[in-house]
């Protein structure tokens, strides 16, 4: 009953004009961002995060900026399908699976039906996941209240281990990406000793370098590399996120598409939308599987909406009586990934809000935003800041309804926007990335760093280095180090505190199971590739014999 009251209050606050307006704007922006090839929810949320500082100061409501960003997240999940179906290019990685059957449907002249199926399935997936979220979140956060430093560090280790064990990317490159991201988070002042570390240059050396470059005395209102201390301010999360997702991804998309994108024309009318809604009866199975599987895959740290949608597509196809129809334009093949990516996006919010551990790169950006607005994601959030949590959950319901209505009503507009030449869109994204970074931190050093990260990210991506783990690591880095060091401080440097349930942590002989179990799962996940390799080798020898 308490949850219903809180939810009712939350929905009521989410319906206040300023929050409703932000949700509408966020959904529309998200739909555009999701629909445009090369941009996904993470790009949109990262590039637009600096704008929320302004929202925060204008509304004085802690939930408002988050409602705006969550609406972008939702909208982008809907929008991804539009370009998958009409262009054959996924708007985002989360909509890759939608292309498998959405594009063939469009080529057969059924683009309108595919678009409507995607929108309705997304709505159902999002709504089912939000109901689950409402039920699970308070329970999970109350359990997590008992977590100490070892437990929280073990959970973070698990998040990174999932990338290695289940990520599917090159393992050493994933490991490099994680370590690099965590290391970037250590640059600046050490939180515990207060001493600088990895700052590379002191102010005297910086001035000498600028003098050598001839820019130290520039008569500018904001001097070149104006920030004092450069790296001693630390590497801001947004600098990496906007660099990777604003600059790097854009350069990658320009190279991959080479500005050549052809679009399938489609006519959308009220009657065609109704026909699509009636046709949903052929897509109920994909919608159901996607809604349920998507949520639970979304909860897993490091999984997120992309594996959720791909798995749902695979399971729907595998359990179908006619698997050969998949890839030829089966509505279930559109509904499953679309329901799943929306469901997973809500699922990924669950560990972020209740444990402070994001389930996907987008939720990592959202988590960083919450920290910037003065909130502390984690189990105490539900207890300490209900005025933030419940309006946000309320806004999930509202944004979902807004997203499906806006999506269906404005499909022709989105199709019109998709005709915008990439050579106009790309410079606009570059400009927004640069202006946004400057607006967030008021110094040019971070802007330079952001562009260099972007170009570096592009080069590394060519060589298959996964970058999402690095982004997640930068967000979690400071907390992970703090928890690790505090745990080791309490255990006198004994690592058993993480893996031995019988380690006497508090001198009372109590057993602690959560951290050891989590750590061992993480170790198994990290060792998984080696175990699988050994298994394959033994089986190969057995077959040869």
């Amino acid at each position, binding site marked *: 009953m308490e949850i219903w009251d809180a939810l009712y209050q939350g929905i009521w606050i989410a319906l206040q004009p300023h929050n409703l307006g932000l949700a509408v704007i966020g959904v529309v922006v998200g739909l555009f961002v999701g629909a445009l090839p090369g941009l996904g929810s993470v790009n949109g949320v990262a590039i637009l995060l600096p704008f929320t500082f302004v929202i925060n100061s204008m509304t004085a409501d802690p939930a408002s900026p988050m409602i705006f960003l969550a609406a972008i997240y939702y909208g982008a999940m809907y929008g991804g399908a539009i370009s998958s179906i009409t262009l054959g290019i996924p708007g985002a990685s989360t909509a890759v699976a939608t292309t498998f059957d959405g594009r063939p449907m469009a080529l057969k002249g059924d683009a309108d039906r595919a678009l409507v199926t995607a929108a309705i399935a997304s709505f159902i997936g999002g709504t089912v996941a939000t109901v689950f979220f409402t039920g699970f979140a308070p329970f999970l956060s109350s359990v997590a209240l008992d977590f100490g430093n070892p437990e929280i560090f073990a959970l973070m280790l698990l998040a990174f281990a999932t990338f290695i064990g289940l990520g599917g990317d090159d393992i050493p490159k994933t490991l490099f990406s994680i370590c690099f991201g965590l290391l970037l988070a250590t640059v600046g002042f050490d939180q515990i000793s207060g001493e600088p570390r990895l700052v590379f240059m002191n102010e005297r050396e910086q001035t000498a370098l600028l003098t050598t470059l001839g820019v130290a005395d520039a008569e*500018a*209102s904001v001097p070149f590399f104006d920030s004092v201390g450069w790296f001693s301010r630390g590497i801001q999360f947004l600098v990496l996120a906007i660099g990777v997702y604003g*600059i790097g991804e854009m350069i990658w998309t320009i190279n991959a598409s080479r500005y050549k994108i052809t679009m399938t024309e489609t006519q959308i009318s009220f009657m065609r939308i109704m026909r699509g809604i009636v046709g949903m009866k052929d897509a109920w199975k994909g919608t159901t599987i996607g809604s349920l599987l998507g949520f639970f895959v979304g909860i897993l740290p490091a999984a997120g909406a992309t594996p959720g949608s791909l798995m749902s597509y695979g399971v729907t196809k595998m359990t179908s009586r006619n698997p050969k129809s998949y890839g030829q334009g089966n509505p279930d093949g559109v509904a499953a990934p679309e329901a799943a990516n929306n469901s997973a996006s809500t699922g990924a919010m669950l560990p972020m809000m209740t444990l402070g551990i994001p389930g996907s790169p987008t939720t990592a950006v959202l988590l960083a935003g919450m920290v910037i607005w003065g909130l502390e994601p984690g189990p105490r959030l539900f207890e300490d800041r209900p005025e933030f949590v419940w309006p946000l959950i309320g806004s999930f319901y509202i944004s979902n309804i807004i997203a499906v209505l806006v999506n269906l009503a404005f499909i022709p507009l989105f199709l019109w926007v998709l005709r915008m030449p990439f050579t106009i869109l790309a410079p*606009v994204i570059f*400009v927004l990335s640069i202006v946004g970074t400057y607006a967030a931190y008021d110094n040019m050093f971070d802007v*330079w760093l952001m562009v260099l990260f972007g170009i570096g990210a592009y080069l590394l991506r060519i060589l298959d280095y996964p970058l999402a783990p690095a982004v997640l690591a930068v967000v979690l880095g400071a907390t992970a180090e703090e928890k690790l060091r505090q745990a080791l401080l309490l255990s006198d440097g004994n690592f058993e505190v993480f893996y031995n349930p019988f380690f006497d942590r508090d001198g009372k002989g109590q057993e602690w199971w959560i951290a050891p179990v989590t750590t061992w799962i993480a170790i198994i996940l990290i060792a998984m590739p080696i175990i699988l390799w050994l298994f394959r080798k033994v089986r190969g020898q057995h077959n040869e014999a």
Partner: protein
Amino acid sequence: MRRAEFVTAIILALLSVYLMWKSGEGPEWDTEYVHWSNISVNIDGSGPGKGFWPFYLALGMLISCIWIIINAIRKQSPPSQSDEPFMDGYAAKMLLFVGGGLIAFLVLIDMISMYAAIAVFMLYYMLFLGRHPLLLSIVTCLVVPFWLYLFFDIMMTKVQPKGTRWIEDTIYNPAGEFFRSQSLIMIAVFFAISGAILALSARASRQ
């Protein structure tokens, strides 16, 4: 691609070694500090030192790089199996034009202000890389920075760099005084008028 895989891994390995060395450094003011003494797990009962975490992370990076190099030697990673070049002619040219354009953009911010640099960058991109009509390119490169100026500097008071003192005094200060004295409705009208001009120029260019 294989050579690029090697070269990148070696550069990153060298970076890791450098970061390991840097992690072991003490504070500048402590002349008695012995290198590496802050990377221990438990220093005098006060827990790990400030270099502990970054040192082992850099070590993790180094191990990963060695692993990547071994995989490349054994041709086990997709890039090391690929015969394609790291960058073909188009990709290299594109990186030079786009990356170079971005660097030039940043340099210009300091000299001619953020908004003027945006205009120059947009014009360069649309005319040179996009081959859009001159009219549309010029109007877009004027309207986009104008919108951003209204949004950031005027509405949100998030002031962007204004270039040299002369540019700030001659252009931005009077412009700021004018626009800040306008009501929100008038600002919306400015947005709408400039948007209409952009739409008209797009239509004229299409014809």
